[in-house]
């Protein structure tokens, strides 16, 4: 049955991403221009050591720093029908997909996992900005629905890390349809009385912001993250005015009532533990680095799902797997 049969046993897989290591081993901070050594940057959770800019972090690394002992189990997302529109711009959509898969080592732009934070079992999902700008297509929609269903069935909170340029244009109207689809997913969580926490990271824009990213019980953003519906360039071209410094950045949104908090990446884990436990009505957490959960809890696979995500393309394929 859909994601259950493909449930991956938790392992310390996070640190050994299949992602290609950049050849030059140095990356340039897009904010301050400082050249940063790959390992140093990775140790600092991809936050610039010179200007504190929060760079994109891939889901695996994010989860490694989030979960107790860096251990989490991947939850399989039902595949989608490839290229239903036979979309072609300068490249064919399937070719773009292949390229993205090669450079990231990931199948798609979102990853759903389960594990414990501060000994609190949760479901987490994270968008991968390096995979076609994290764009929301049918797969991302399925991922969020899968995450919500897993949360409901296992009675766990869902923590979602958003990062996306917006909808995946190559899937046309079907990407737009992910807005209502993911909203249904959020409704399932709310009906089950489960906490839904959104962590908005740089950038979270377009249809993603206008759906699941703005429907959390609690909204936390990383510092200086660009969060908007229409991007600054589009607005500037439309109104022919220069926008003020800091417009549509996390701190601006906090002032304008859209966010609960702006939190540095290094404090994110502790804060998520604190908030999650209070929302669940549980006692204070033991803070700090915790070892991985005991093997029994580790191997506890989610109970069988009754239904595949409604309308999830390719669930037949997943069943075969």
């Amino acid at each position: 049955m859909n994601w259950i049969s493909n449930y991956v046993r938790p392992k310390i897989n996070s640190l050994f991403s299949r992602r290609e290591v950049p050849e030059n081993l140095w990356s340039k901070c897009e904010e301050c221009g400082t050249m940063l050594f790959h390992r140093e940057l990775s140790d600092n959770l991809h936050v610039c050591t010179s200007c504190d800019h929060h760079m994109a972090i891939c889901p695996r690394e994010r989860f490694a720093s989030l979960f107790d002992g860096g251990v989490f189990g991947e939850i399989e997302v039902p595949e989608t029908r490839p290229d239903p529109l036979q979309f072609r711009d300068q490249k064919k959509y399937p070719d773009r997909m292949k390229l993205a898969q090669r450079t990231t080592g990931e199948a798609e732009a979102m990853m759903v996992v389960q594990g414990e934070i501060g000994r609190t079992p949760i479901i987490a999902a994270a968008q991968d900005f390096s995979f076609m700008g994290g764009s929301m297509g049918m797969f991302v929609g399925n991922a969020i629905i899968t995450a919500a269903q897993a949360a409901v069935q296992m009675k766990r909170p869902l923590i979602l890390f958003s990062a996306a340029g917006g909808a995946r244009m190559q899937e046309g109207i079907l990407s737009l349809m992910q807005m209502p689809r993911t909203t249904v997913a959020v409704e399932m969580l709310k009906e089950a009385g489960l906490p839904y926490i959104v962590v908005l990271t740089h950038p979270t824009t377009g249809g993603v912001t206008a759906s699941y990213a703005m429907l959390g019980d609690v909204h936390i953003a990383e510092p200086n993250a660009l969060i908007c519906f229409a991007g600054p360039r589009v607005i500037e071209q439309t109104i022919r005015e220069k926008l003020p410094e800091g417009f549509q950045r996390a701190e601006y949104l906090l002032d304008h009532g859209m966010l609960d908090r702006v939190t540095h990446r290094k404090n994110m884990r502790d804060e998520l533990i604190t908030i999650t436990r209070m929302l669940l009505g549980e006692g204070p957490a033991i803070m700090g680095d915790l070892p991985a959960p005991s093997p029994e809890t580790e191997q506890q696979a989610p109970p069988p799902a009754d239904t595949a995500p409604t309308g999830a393309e390719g669930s037949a394929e997943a069943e075969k797997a």
Partner: protein
Amino acid sequence: MTHYLEFEKPLAEIEGKAEELRAMARASEEMDVDKEAEALDRKAADLLAELYKKLDPWRKCLVARHPGRPHCKDYIEALFREYTPLAGDRNFADDHAVMGGLARLGDQPVVVIGHEKGHDTKTRIERNFGMARPEGYRKAIRLMDLADRFNLPVVTLVDTPGAYPGKGAEERGQSEAIARATEKCLQIGVPLVSVIIGEGGSGGAVAFATANRVAMLEHSIYSVISPEGCASILWKDAEKMREAAEALRLTAQDLERLGVIDRIIDEPVGGAQRDREATIAAVGATIGAMLDGLDGLDREGLIQDRRTKFLDMGTKGLAA
């Protein structure tokens, strides 16, 4: 530096003299002023007790507004653990006149919401002197919804001159926001307890204080209008605030007799500003006791309890 109120002037003189004597004694070792200074201390203590034993309603207003009283922020910092502020109305702004978020009272997670006035010029402006705009009430509504969804008790701390009378606030629906907040107080299926810690100014206060249990600090006030405002309307003379304060029955003592509030929390002699820690501890104990008192009620029971309480308002008590 002690901040003395107008009526505390005689006290200021005595305490000043005692302080002067001690300073002189420190300067020259031969001087023995202990006896004299202690006598002054006793005199000051007696006067303080005397002054505060029979504070008239207007003086209560002054004490309730005393800048040295503990404010919402002080209570939250001292009484709660893991306070995690949550911001914003998800619509227009984050109103700094209202603070709130998740926190633990003992081990019990709760949602705490309150007006914060600020403690110096900078923070007072930032907090808009504790006068909330529609965004503040909408933030409170959102937090009460969160509490309701996750079954967390709500604690509100009331300390506001009133809702902010501004153009923007009106344009964005100040009345609607207050109405919805009051309605939300009545709708949530979790315990809601409220403490008026300073000024309970009109609709801005009731929007947070439509609670299962309401306590007031001994020298706090709770009123439909400020005495100054009332005086200028009914006496056509804002200087008649003493008379207005008297007539409005805005003291904790009168309001308890009227059944509007459930309990009074004693303040230290000379008011909350003279012993902030003791005051904060007393408020904490009362919040705990009020929540304990609601233990047996389920969601329906809690909602019904508030309905009955407010439907019955005015049917008993006081009347000369």
